[in-house]
């Protein structure tokens, strides 16, 4: 065996655990779910081929549309707000003041809190009768809604709560901001640019790839929202106002044992995410500035 061949063989051998893991636990289930989405399958019995029936039923299923609507509503509210908040915080935390390391830690910390305890904490904050939020609103003369018991307020409440976890995105923005060459700001200063002009014409274009990355991750993450609403109410109560796509998918798969139906739902979600990501990339094409490219 030549050296190259030995190297190649060893390379594949070392990568083999990953290949096996990927094949068994990722590639196979993904491919199998395509097949199952055309069957009636409860896991315990062999699947029965039903053609496109699952997809047809889905499109006529009002709960499917309701959960899809809820999920898109959540994403449409969460992604822009989270982007603004994380970017704004990162800008603030990028300035040179004393104790910056402390501030950064403080703003990052909420994203380290386990989701379940975070949700339970927020359920108390949102409590319509004894919650701190409504108490605080009371001081300024506003009677707060029953956040989690009112169908109009339950989704915004979850958006609000989820914004607590922007710490991760914020740190990524912060890293991006630190990459912006100082001499550009110096040049802008010489030209007499205001702070806003510097942000608009120097900072944002230079960190735009980071913004794109965070927005795409935000879209993917928010369309798969599950834990927060599931801890609050398994049924998405009141009136399924916080019943999201992943919850309905989970219920179909593991409570109703309609694995075929759930597989079809998973593929539709994949397409939705894929399309939205494409749209984001297309939108970014001319607006995102890559250095040296």
């Amino acid at each position, binding site marked *: 065996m030549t050296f190259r061949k030995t190297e190649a063989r*060893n390379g594949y*051998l070392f990568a083999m*655990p990953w290949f096996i893991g990927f094949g068994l636990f990722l590639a196979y289930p993904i491919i199998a779910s395509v097949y199952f989405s055309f069957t*009636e399958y*409860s*896991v*315990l*019995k062999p699947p*029965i081929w039903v053609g496109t029936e699952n997809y047809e*039923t889905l499109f006529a299923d*009002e*709960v499917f549309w309701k959960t899809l609507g809820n999920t898109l509503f959540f994403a449409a509210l969460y992604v822009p707000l989270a982007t603004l908040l994380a970017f704004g915080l990162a800008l603030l935390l990028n300035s040179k003041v004393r104790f910056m390391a402390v501030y950064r830690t403080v703003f990052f910390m909420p994203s380290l809190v386990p989701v379940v305890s975070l949700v339970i904490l927020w359920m108390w904050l949102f*409590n*319509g*009768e*004894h919650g701190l939020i409504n108490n605080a609103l009371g001081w300024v003369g506003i009677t707060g809604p*029953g956040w*989690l*018991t*009112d*169908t109009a307020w339950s989704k915004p409440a979850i958006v609000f709560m989820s914004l607590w976890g922007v710490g991760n995105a914020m740190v990524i923005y912060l890293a991006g901001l630190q990459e912006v060459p100082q001499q550009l700001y110096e040049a802008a200063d010489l030209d007499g640019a205001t702070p806003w002009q510097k942000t608009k014409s120097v900072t944002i274009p230079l960190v735009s790839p980071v913004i794109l990355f965070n927005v795409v991750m935000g879209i993917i993450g928010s369309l798969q929202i599950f834990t927060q609403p599931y801890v609050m109410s398994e*049924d998405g*109560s*009141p*009136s*399924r106002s916080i019943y999201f796509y992943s919850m309905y998918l989970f*219920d179909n798969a*593991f*409570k*109703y*044992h309609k694995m075929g139906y759930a597989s079809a739902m998973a593929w539709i979600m994949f397409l939705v995410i894929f399309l939205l990501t494409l749209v984001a990339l297309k939108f970014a094409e001319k607006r995102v500035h890559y250095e040296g490219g």
Partner: protein
Amino acid sequence: MVGRFVMPAVVLLVLGAFVVSERVVQEQHDDGKIHVTYWEKWTGIEFDAIKRVVDEYNRSQDKIHVDLLSVSGIHNKTLMATAAGVPPDVAGLFGPNIAQYFHDRAVIPLDEMCAEAGITRDDYIPIYWDICTFEGTLYALPATPASTALHYNTRLYKEAGFTKPPETIEEMDAYAVKLTKKDSNGDIVQAGFMHQEPGWWNWGWGFVFGGELWDGESKITCDSPDNVRAFTWLQDYSRKYGTSKLQNFKSGFGAFASPQNAFMSEKVAMVLQGGWMGNFISQFKPDLQWAAAPFPYPKDKPELKGRTFADLDILVIPRGAKHPKEAFEFIKFVQSQKGMEMLCLGQTKHSPLAKSSPEFYAKHPNPYIRLFTDMPKNDSVVSPPKIAIWPEYSSELRNAFDEIFIELKDPQTVLARVRTRMQPALDRYLREKALRQGE
């Protein structure tokens, strides 16, 4: 050359790691007994009661050892473990799971083993045996049962001038008006009766008016006149006392098993609750003045007098269990008067057996234990429907409750929509069942 040995060394290391880790996780049983794994859904005092029964069984003989494990989300996990071929030998499920488990062929029939052991329907309160059977075959045996009754606060009753519990729904509604108190802002500070407390049977109010959720064969009937009447009745509460007032009041309730429980903290004067409630009261609020009585019936339907919801925890042997015979031996022990009374006393429930010993009643901490034992013997008793689509159907009904109670939508329309959603689901199930019949 060193390089020559690197690859074999790595391969050996990996294989070695597999073997060692397998050894480490594999439990060693060298006591010569057959080990039966038993998954149970309960935690807390209910689990402790089961543990005592298991310990008693393990002490009582030297051939079988039952390993008890508390498992959350048991109904899904047992099914997945069964699908994977590694189920427990005994699983403690909920009664309504039986239809779905039967449909998925996840449990084995127990008729033969019962016949051999001399266990028959006559040994039990009939409804509990019936919950365990599906299409004429027995797939489970009872663990602890539950029946429900109206629990009311006698101190608040006295304050309002009531000396006895309401007989009919109409009387209860009138009681509720008098027992509801508001502050100067119009906010509720005490409710007479609340459907959402504890909210565990929001799907089942139709039963109170004689409604049925399906015809037992092929038709969904959730929008029958009796069901619509029930949901209209509960919507009237929402209209009368104010939806958002009730919702806000409810959001201030503490956890069920705590002194802040709405009934124990005297925020709600009357609730529908099960026989276990007495135990929680003596644990968290021993000085609460309360009593229990059969839930009221509609005045024009005296035949529904004394109607109770009966539900049951069940023991099953999943298909593919390694030791089904030994598993049944343990289940048989639980079915004995001694085992069953020990379990039910521990969980402070009544016994599903047809006869309970005088000591059982004497030792039982619930002063209304005879009421809870007798109500399920009544002909009007109901239990959750044995329908394979129940998880989905009950979720639809709970959502219907929200739409009717919170959003004040028309009950007839909402329930009709539930029917049009669930009828095709039932049809699909029946079609698949017919397709598989030949297999």
